């Protein structure tokens, strides 16, 4: 049992074996076949559900940001914090393999932040977020938040498999990466609610047909909300801010 949030993490390896039965078997020794039918991610998902309940108990909407390294996740957060200062209280959990450079950038913007370093692991998992969120709560201002951003390890593959307990998953692709990312890395797009095309100020210098990238992503996941923006020039940023503001107000009205 977790002292701070009361989430029950002591039985994440429960097994339900109601229908064990012995089969006739070609082996001469005494073997037994057990039907398990349990998701390999069950342990992670149980912790993720605990995280989600914890966020909701505190009135927080959690957003998991996924992209390749260098797509502009941290810059998007910096600009978002500037734009929402004084209206929406933001906290950030940063995930990287090494260094706390991203956390330093976010801290400089004056919001509570915790850096998780995975020491080589290619994704964040629910247990790391559980720990990270408790640490964040002890940061100045970290106990009263409206939106929690989780900036995942820069990787368009592995983070897509691990539920962290987030309410929304946002996948970014920047213009220099090329428009074929949705087709090449489908899981991240299938499991997300929002697809952001970032660094649109570079469109004149790269061959990036925006309509094609959007169509490819929607082909994979027709429910995706797609937006394109530049954190540098602010172009298209209003739609992003509107999305966050509306998430926040919906959460306030349902949470009240």
């Amino acid at each position, binding site marked *: 049992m977790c002292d701070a949030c009361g989430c029950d993490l002591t039985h994440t*390896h429960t*097994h339900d*074996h109601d229908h064990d039965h012995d089969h006739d*078997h070609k*082996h001469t*020794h*005494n*073997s*037994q*076949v*057990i*039907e*398990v*039918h*349990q*998701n*390999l*991610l069950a*342990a*992670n998902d149980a912790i993720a559900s605990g995280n989600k309940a914890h966020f909701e108990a505190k009135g927080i909407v959690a957003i998991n940001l996924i992209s390749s390294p260098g797509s502009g996740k941290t810059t998007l957060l910096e600009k978002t914090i500037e734009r929402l200062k004084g209206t929406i209280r933001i906290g950030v959990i940063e995930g990287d393999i090494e260094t706390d450079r991203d956390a330093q950038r976010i801290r400089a913007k004056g919001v509570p932040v915790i850096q998780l370093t995975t020491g080589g*692991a*290619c*994704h964040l*998992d629910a247990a790391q977020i559980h720990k990270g969120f408790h640490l964040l709560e002890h940061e100045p201002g970290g106990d009263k938040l409206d939106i929690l951003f989780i900036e995942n390890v820069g990787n368009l*593959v*592995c983070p*897509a*498999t*691990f539920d962290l307990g987030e309410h929304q998953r946002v996948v970014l692709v920047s213009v220099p990466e090329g428009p074929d990312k949705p087709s090449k890395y*489908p*899981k*991240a797009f*299938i*499991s997300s609610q929002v697809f952001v095309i970032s660094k649109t100020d570079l469109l004149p210098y790269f061959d990036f047909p925006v309509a094609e990238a959007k169509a490819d992503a*929607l*082909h*994979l*996941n*027709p*429910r995706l909300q797609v937006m394109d923006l530049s954190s540098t020039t602010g172009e298209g940023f209003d739609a992003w801010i509107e999305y966050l503001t509306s998430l926040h107000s919906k959460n306030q009205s349902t949470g009240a």
Partner: protein
Amino acid sequence: MHEMSLVQGLIEQLVALAAEHDKQRILTVTVDIGPLSGVAIDSFQFAFDILSKENNLTNEASLTIINSPATFRCVQCGHEESAAVRPDQCSKCQESLLIPEGGDAITLNQVELE
């Protein structure tokens, strides 16, 4: 690369099952990897071959991987079809937008122990 951590979790689960049933060896393991799970089957098998050797309970275990299909639902006519690979379009109305349902799980189905 996350296949390594998934297999680590699998081995822990197998060790727990063996302890629970008082068994000394895992003989066969069957895992269902959905086509939309984001898991590379070859990498999963590779990770299992390496990590299973490091444990006395699992070092002789053989892994069988099955690949159950996902369901794709047409946004226009609602027709559902089951497929391991996303169809280009709906077979009834030719709409190209299909919503995937399921097929994203990685499930430990069956274990044989002695």
